[in-house]
């Protein structure tokens, strides 16, 4: 069973629907025992980092996530989930879970596109990723595949070896993170059509090597 962490951060049903569609069993839950029993954990979310961290703390889920990450369970972060696993987010000046050393920053003002016109923020829509490090999570992903993003902040891991893929939007930022038993995407893989579902399947069958 895959536990999809429910911490009142937006619509989590779309992740559950995608996992179910792929034939895996999942539960949307904030029950600590259920999370401990799960074989895998998905940590999704939309909204703001500050609100997300507050909900996690109120539900006692911050400690469980740290504990489960240390125990080696496969964990997938999505969007805000990917930001909250870092040490710190500039959004609401939030101290985060610290599972991955690094920080989360806002897109700077004044970014321009190839035509010189100002880029719109949030970065919203379909964009490609450039794979930087091969990883089972990215198996079958092609250079022309695109993914659905909606965000104004992005993560900067301290260790470049954690950067599995980057995306260009006025600057190059980290779109996929991988560290030990943890993978995370800034985009919504559950809303990214076939390539996103492929990545989700990759996670559901992934065996992090010791």
């Amino acid at each position, binding site marked *: 069973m895959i536990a999809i962490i429910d911490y009142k951060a937006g619509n989590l*049903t779309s992740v559950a*629907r995608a996992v179910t569609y792929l034939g895996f069993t999942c539960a949307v839950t904030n029950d600590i025992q259920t999370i401990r029993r799960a074989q895998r954990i998905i940590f999704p979310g939309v909204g703001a980092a500050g609100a997300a961290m507050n909900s996690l703390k109120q539900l006692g889920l911050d400690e469980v996530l740290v504990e489960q990450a240390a125990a080696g369970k496969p964990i997938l972060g999505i969007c805000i989930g990917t930001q909250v696993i870092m040490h710190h987010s500039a959004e609401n000046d939030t101290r985060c879970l610290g599972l991955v050393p690094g920080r989360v920053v806002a897109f700077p003002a004044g970014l321009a596109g190839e035509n010189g016109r100002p880029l719109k*923020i949030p970065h919203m*829509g379909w*964009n490609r990723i450039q794979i930087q490090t091969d990883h089972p999570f990215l198996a079958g992903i092609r250079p*022309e595949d695109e993914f*659905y993003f909606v965000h104004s902040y992005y993560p900067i891991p301290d260790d470049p070896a954690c950067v599995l893929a980057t995306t260009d939007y006025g600057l190059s930022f980290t779109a996929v993170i991988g560290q030990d038993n943890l993978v995370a995407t800034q985009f919504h893989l559950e*809303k990214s059509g*076939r390539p996103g579902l492929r990545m989700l399947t990759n996670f559901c069958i992934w065996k992090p090597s010791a």
Partner: protein
Amino acid sequence: MLSKRIIPCLDVRDGRTTKGVRFKDNVDIGDPVAMARFYYEEGADEIVFYDITASHERRGIMIDVVRRVAETIFIPFSVGGGIRTLEDMREVLLAGAEKVSINSAAVRHPDLIAQGAEAFGSQCVVLGMDVKRVRPSAAIRSGYEVVINGGRTPMGIDALEWALRAVKLGAGEICLNSIDADGTQEGYETNLTSLISGQVRIPVIASGGAGKPEHLRDVLTAGRADAALIASMVHYGSYPISEIKSYLSRCGIRVRQSW
């Protein structure tokens, strides 16, 4: 760099699509769930459902459609039409839509935009605008006026000013429909689209007037649109989405071509 989005729009009445005749061999004609799946597989980047159900009592049917669509397609989709309250918005989002589109109700009660953005996040709140060309005046300097009730009621509000105000209130995206171009299949209102899109810092979806791929090319370049809504030209069968995208790509416009 972001791809330009191509977004089919389905008008749904009492749980059935009201246009749509290209689906003879593939799916039940007029079933919005099957049509959404068809467009998803054909490369649509997003789908818009517009609920034109006449009576409030039958809105539950639409919610059921939304729920079934969410189980079948794995790209974003939005729902609009008859959304009046925060509770209406919540219902649609909980059923599985990514975004909800508000139009007349937002003009009557602009605070609905702010409340929606606060409750669900700006990325969920699409401002639908119906706009008509008028003679520029002191009140409507841009020469484009906001109309509501499906284009029947002019509001004496300047479209550009309304768009800028909606952004401040927290709208995450604008779906900009030209009443003049709508249904003509003679091309989008490129001037209007470029005027609004050049001034707001949120994405603008151009709507109304698409009849052939050249129209999309124009509105996505000169019109500065981030996305283009299409209806008749895909429903009535002249152009598969993949073909439209190949054409745009040949014109040098970045579109998503792998799905």
